[in-house]
């Protein structure tokens, strides 16, 4: 039997979930369809998790608009959803004279983009701020508003809030066909057919494939891979700010940053690739990243690597986000949300709802009262569940049995160990499962399936 909705969002990455949340909170009946076994199966699974001010974004772009709107909405709602903010600031560092002369332009661009507190700092100020940095750092632009957030809890909180407002999330529901009958979309998925008046394509790395279900797409996703190396916890004491390079014509360069989980990471690379799923790490690149990190922060030489990962940016040939309403088709395309979508997602959602109201249907006059669905905190600098006691299962990340059980329960339970990791941090630490993987898996299976 077909289920009918006002809105169907295809894709449960951070962008799709933020859109779902907005529509649900506006009082529409919506569903999100995700092909993966869990939400965050695509680009949103592995990123740098920086909350950007947009200081270096292309001026006047939709991207800049969405990032800034998203930035402010995140700050506005984060406490009500228990989402963390690690206030780090960023420094764009000049490592040589060529880069030093470019700093004033970077500041000018920031000012033009409305980031008015960006300022130049001297080598002395930089050293006082970041005493562990290699001495070859010559000066910097300080951007106080750049911060670090939790890449997984934010979209999870958006999903939970959408569900609380009546939205449905169907996982394992790849949309394979879209047909229009009597003004309604019929979407075929392995979980059955879904009917909706308006469809939002937020399929990230597969947005062009999904677009091709209804018409010849006018864009192509050209994934760009980013690899990362994560250092063990003591490394995070070596750095305060996010360290950004001066961008060159060719590349934006790699970033050194603290993670919300109390580590320090370097990345991402920018590599053209055909991979759209399961991005591959390669040893040579990882070794290079590690060496680069040590060159910038020499004390890292004595710190172990905790984790490696890679993410795929859903890039297109277009230099801006693609957010477009296809009026005749009752379809909104949201594609090419490359490297700033975690920040931009809430802003993108605002735009999409506006587009909808303009072209496809009125929003209900009376907004339902907002329901807030706080998520468990995973941030290292804030209060975590283990602090109140309980049995610790994952000894490196201090994850309790109760957290594992909670992640296996509720309206959007984790479906596998990857999902569990993103909801709890379990097995993410320095031992990578040597001590606890077996215990964690069996506790998870027991909570989820009732069998150890």
């Amino acid at each position: 039997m077909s289920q009918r909705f006002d809105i169907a969002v295809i894709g449960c990455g951070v962008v799709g979930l933020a859109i779902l949340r907005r529509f649900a909170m506006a009082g529409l009946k919506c569903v999100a369809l995700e092909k993966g076994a869990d939400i965050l199966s695509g680009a949103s699974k592995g990123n740098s998790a920086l909350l950007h001010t947009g200081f270096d974004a292309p001026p006047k772009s939709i991207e800049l608009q969405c990032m800034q709107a998203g930035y402010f909405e995140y700050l506005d709602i984060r406490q009500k959803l228990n989402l963390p903010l690690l206030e780090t600031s960023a420094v764009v560092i000049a490592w040589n004279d060529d880069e030093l002369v470019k700093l004033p332009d970077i500041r000018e661009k920031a000012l033009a983009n409305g980031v008015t507190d960006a300022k130049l700092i001297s080598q002395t100020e930089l050293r006082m701020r970041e005493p562990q940095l290699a001495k070859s750092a010559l000066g910097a632009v300080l951007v106080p508003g750049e911060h670090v957030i939790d890449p997984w809890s934010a979209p999870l909180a958006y999903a939970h809030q959408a569900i609380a407002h009546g939205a449905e999330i169907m996982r394992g529901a790849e949309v394979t066909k879209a047909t229009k009958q009597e003004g309604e979309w019929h979407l075929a998925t392995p979980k059955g057919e879904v009917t909706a008046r308006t469809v939002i394509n937020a399929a990230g790395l597969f947005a062009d494939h999904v677009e091709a279900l209804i018409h010849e797409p006018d864009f192509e996703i050209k994934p760009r891979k980013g690899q990362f190396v994560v250092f063990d916890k003591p490394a995070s004491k070596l750095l305060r700010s996010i360290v950004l390079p001066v961008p060159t014509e060719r590349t934006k360069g790699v970033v050194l940053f603290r993670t919300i989980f109390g580590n320090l990471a370097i990345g991402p690379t920018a590599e053209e690739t055909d991979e759209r799923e399961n991005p591959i790490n390669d040893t040579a690149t990882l070794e290079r990243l590690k060496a680069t990190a040590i060159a910038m922060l020499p004390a890292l030489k004595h710190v172990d690597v905790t984790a490696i990962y890679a993410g795929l940016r859903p890039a297109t040939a277009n230099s801006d986000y693609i957010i477009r309403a296809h009026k005749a088709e009752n379809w909104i395309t949201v594609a090419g949300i490359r490297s700033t979508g975690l920040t931009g997602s809430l802003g993108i959602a605002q735009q999409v709802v506006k587009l909808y109201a303009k072209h496809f249907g009125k929003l209900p006059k009376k907004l339902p009262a907002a329901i807030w669905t706080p998520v468990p905190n995973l941030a290292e600098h804030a209060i975590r569940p283990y602090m109140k006691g309980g049995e610790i299962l994952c000894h490196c990340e201090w994850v309790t049995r109760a957290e594992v059980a909670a992640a296996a329960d509720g309206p959007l339970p984790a479906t596998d160990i990857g999902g569990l990791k993103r909801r709890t941090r379990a097995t993410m630490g320095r031992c990578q499962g040597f001590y606890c993987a077996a215990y964690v898996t069996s506790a998870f299976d027991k909570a989820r399936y009732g069998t150890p």
Partner: protein
Amino acid sequence: MEHHSVIIIGAGPAGLSTALALCQSGAKDVVVLERETQAGGIPRHCGHKGFAPYKNFGLMTGPNLASLLREQTTGLDIRTSTTVLEFTLRGSLRVHSTQGITEISADKIVLAAGTRETSRAARLIGGNKLKGVMNTGELQQRVYLGGEHPFRRPVIVGSEWVSYSTLLTCRHLHAKPVMLLAEDGENAAPSYFSFGARLLGTKVVRGAKLIAIRGNSAVEAIEIERFGKQQTVECDAVVLTGKFRSEDALYSNGYLERNGYAPAVTDGFKTSKPNVYAVGNVLGHLETAGLCMAQGRELAKVLFP
């Protein structure tokens, strides 16, 4: 603040034998803190033979040795499900238990936190993130504690004697390792181990480097480089053995001075902090349980002459 004369961190063979020897020589107020639900350390999940309390290798299984140790130490103050989170700046311990977090101090603190193997990430091995890549520690917990059958045709990487322990686990599972990949390493096991591997029917490949692990949702193959040539080997799991490194969570922030990746110690197991001692595998090498226990007895003489 709760205070004791000796706190031992870790109830593995080293910590337990230190505690036992201390109590036998009349020391009072010795407390052992163990983060697992049960004392015994690594041997709890080494289901094969090879352990002995008074010499290097013997015919006891790990779990037998662990329960012998628990028996011998009944009556001592051993607190399980109790994790030492960190040393505080004033030298006390921040301790987590099911009740919450407290601070405990001691005249003397013994670090007996053991070792772990180097993970795939720390080895910077490329490829996809996949199920079926694990260390021996995880494997043995799955097999001997969880009764799982995680694979049929694994590749075993490593040439230290612990790789042999992995082979024994495979035999227990009736799994047929595709090969034992002996990378060029510092701690290569003596040749009788590779003789042993061949006796168990496993091909030993030396001088190769594991480049990448590939597959879709689970491991399907590995890529290795040998004599400058790349080669693909099909398998359904990869067990990364050895390259042990000290469990450094409590001192990697610089609280104790280090020697390589282990706490620096002078004779008598003394670390750079006057009241902190380190014993057993936390010193950075994989020694046998028997040897770690002997170290514990020696340390007890230093602590309570």
